[in-house]
């Protein structure tokens, strides 16, 4: 992908650049200013402001929408790290509202109820950058083609079960390796098979990596989970219900941050895994009916 060198605001350089600044960090879901403070003090590199964490959305059901602006503003006031907020898939007006509120990143998220079952938001039109979820490389590249400046795995949010995040990260990274080893004449049919823009496929063939930062999300509930995702090859992690649904959020938050920095050091990982209290209760994704699986949302 050709990176524009034009000067001004809202450029591809400043949108993807903010994600570069978040790398090696943990982005935590928070529902109150107090939780946002705890996250910042524990070393979170950003917070995701929302009304209900995914495990509660799962339990309570109903339509999950963008959060109340006053709630997002309260969190913005409480911390100086970047504040992200979620819009429904395809709901470009929720995205316009979040941009007007001055959030630093919008997550067009499958955790909320989709507003459009065919199209995602055309993200190039916004000055605020977007992060989007994916299960495989084709999905990641369609989102980047629409203007996503950061990608995350979908995983299965609100389960405390890392298995889907692992599946999605392995799928994306494995397909990148496969494309890197291809001959040029194989790239066009690959673009067709993955339903992905050709220019980004070509870029991946040349560089061996996505043109944007790639985080893991969905089901990360322990320091070991975070380090697992980092060792598999993502550049940072989102933790949703895993922190504030655990027995001791403060200690869990710090431990997950340390595990993400020192993901390759088993001695430190052993140390931070000790005495954390109970993690969030988990759900088995295999016994979950398909309509309850959030990762199926998005096209």
């Amino acid at each position, binding site marked *: 992908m050709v990176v524009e*060198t*034009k*000067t*001004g*605001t*809202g*450029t591809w*350089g*400043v949108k993807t*650049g*903010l994600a*570069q*600044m*978040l*790398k*090696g*960090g943990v982005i935590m879901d928070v529902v109150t200013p107090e939780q946002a403070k705890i996250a*910042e*003090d*524990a*070393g*979170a*590199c*950003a917070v995701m402001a929302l009304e209900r964490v995914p495990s509660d959305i799962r339990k309570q059901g109903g339509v999950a929408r963008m959060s109340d602006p006053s709630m997002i503003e309260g969190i913005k006031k409480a*911390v*100086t*790290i*970047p504040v992200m907020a979620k819009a429904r898939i395809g709901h470009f007006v929720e995205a316009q509202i979040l*941009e007007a509120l*001055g*959030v*630093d*990143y919008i997550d067009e998220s499958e955790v909320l109820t989709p507003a459009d079952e065919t199209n995602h938001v055309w993200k190039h039109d916004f*000055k*605020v*950058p977007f992060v989007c979820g994916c299960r495989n490389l084709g999905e990641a590249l369609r989102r980047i083609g629409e203007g996503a400046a950061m990608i995350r795995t979908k995983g299965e949010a609100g389960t405390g079960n890392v298995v889907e995040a692992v599946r999605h990260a392995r799928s994306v990274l494995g397909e990148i390796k496969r494309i890197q080893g291809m001959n040029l004449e194989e790239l066009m049919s690959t673009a067709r098979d993955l339903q992905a823009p050709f220019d980004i496929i070509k870029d991946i063939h040349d560089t061996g990596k996505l043109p944007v930062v790639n985080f893991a999300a969905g089901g990360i509930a322990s320091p070991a989970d975070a380090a697992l995702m980092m060792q598999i090859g993502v550049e940072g992690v989102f933790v949703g219900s895993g922190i504030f649904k655990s027995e001791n959020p403060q200690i869990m938050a*710090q431990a997950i*941050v*340390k595990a993400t*920095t*020192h993901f390759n*050091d088993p001695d430190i990982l052993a140390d931070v895994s000790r005495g954390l209290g109970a993690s969030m209760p988990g759900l088995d994704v295999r016994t979950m009916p398909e309509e309850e699986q959030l990762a199926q949302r998005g096209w």
Partner: protein
Amino acid sequence: MTRIGVLALQGDFFEHIKILKNLDIDAVEIRLPSQLDSIDGLIIPGGESTTIVQLIDIYKFREKLIKTIKEGLPTWGTCAGLIVLAKKLMDHRPDPLKLMDITVQRNAFGRQVDSFESNIDITGVKGPPFNCIFIRAPIVTKVGKNTEILAKVDNNRAVAVKEKNILGTSFHPELTNDTRVHELFLEMTL
């Protein structure tokens, strides 16, 4: 061979390492304080300044960083790194290392939607203006008598400064393919 360490607690340390390697420099990630003893220069990268300072304290880097840099280790901070090195910040957090006689305003241009790119002349960097990428960037509002201002943006605000063995920039040369500011820093390590 010159060996440059990049503080790898959080942020875009890998981008600095990539540029240094392209310049045939031995570049290493610094994740523990003891690793500061074996380098000829240090880069504190871009990232979230609050997060990086928290991690400096959580991983017990503070004392060692202050001692090593005061003893003359050539050091360059980009964006969050500049904030970390400042003597004074205009808001009450985080608590910086106070190694450079400057006052810094964080998020001086506004929030992410106000982040921007601009081509700017930098003292000591030859050739055309440098493509400076400012992301939730700080500015230097006040400098001490031994601090040299190397670059300013339109309304006269300082965005690149130098003081003895320390260089600071509000922007991110590591996000470009242009190696000239890295070369400027490498000259300081000779």
